[in-house]
């Protein structure tokens, strides 16, 4: 069963409690999501590392029950 936006947000916030997390249902089909994660923890890390941190928070769902997640990560301004 596909993951819900709420579940994605919960997992990311559990790993990054102080992050700003916005989840978007891109196709309206509950299977193609976008996520913007803004967090101080990302500072000094490459984009690949930042995305790997978010994928780790998703506990193996990425590429499985979570088919597609357009991910955007950043540090607070």
């Amino acid at each position, binding site marked *: 069963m596909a993951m819900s936006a709420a579940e994605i947000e919960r997992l990311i916030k559990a790993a990054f409690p102080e992050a700003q997390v916005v989840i978007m249902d891109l196709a309206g089909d509950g299977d193609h999501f976008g996520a913007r994660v803004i967090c101080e923890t990302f500072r000094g890390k490459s*984009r*690949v590392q930042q*995305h*790997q941190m978010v*994928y780790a928070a998703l506990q*193996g769902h*990425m*590429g499985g029950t979570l088919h*597609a997640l*357009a*991910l*955007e990560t950043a540090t607070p301004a």
Partner: protein
Amino acid sequence: MTDPTRARIEGLIAGSDVLLFMKGVPAAPQCGFSGALVQILARLDVPFDSVDVLADFAVREGIKAYSNWPTLPQLYVKGEFVGGCDIVREMFHSGELAALLNAKGVVGAQS
């Protein structure tokens, strides 16, 4: 991932300046994300090699463990993992991808 698969992946990556692990082949991508990266490389006029992971299940799973990246496509430049669709697209639009290719001496990269 078995050692032979790891060795095969390392050989593939070492053997190409620009290598795209994708679903399908450049002329017929089997996934929108893979197709997007083929188009980006074409627009930058970058010669590249590709691996159709749909034809090679061991590499399809092995490459995810190899790069600690759970999805495909995956782009490698001079042996280094650059990113998946999101990151490469972002780098393309910001000009970072062309700059990286030029810095790595990849022939033909248009800025």
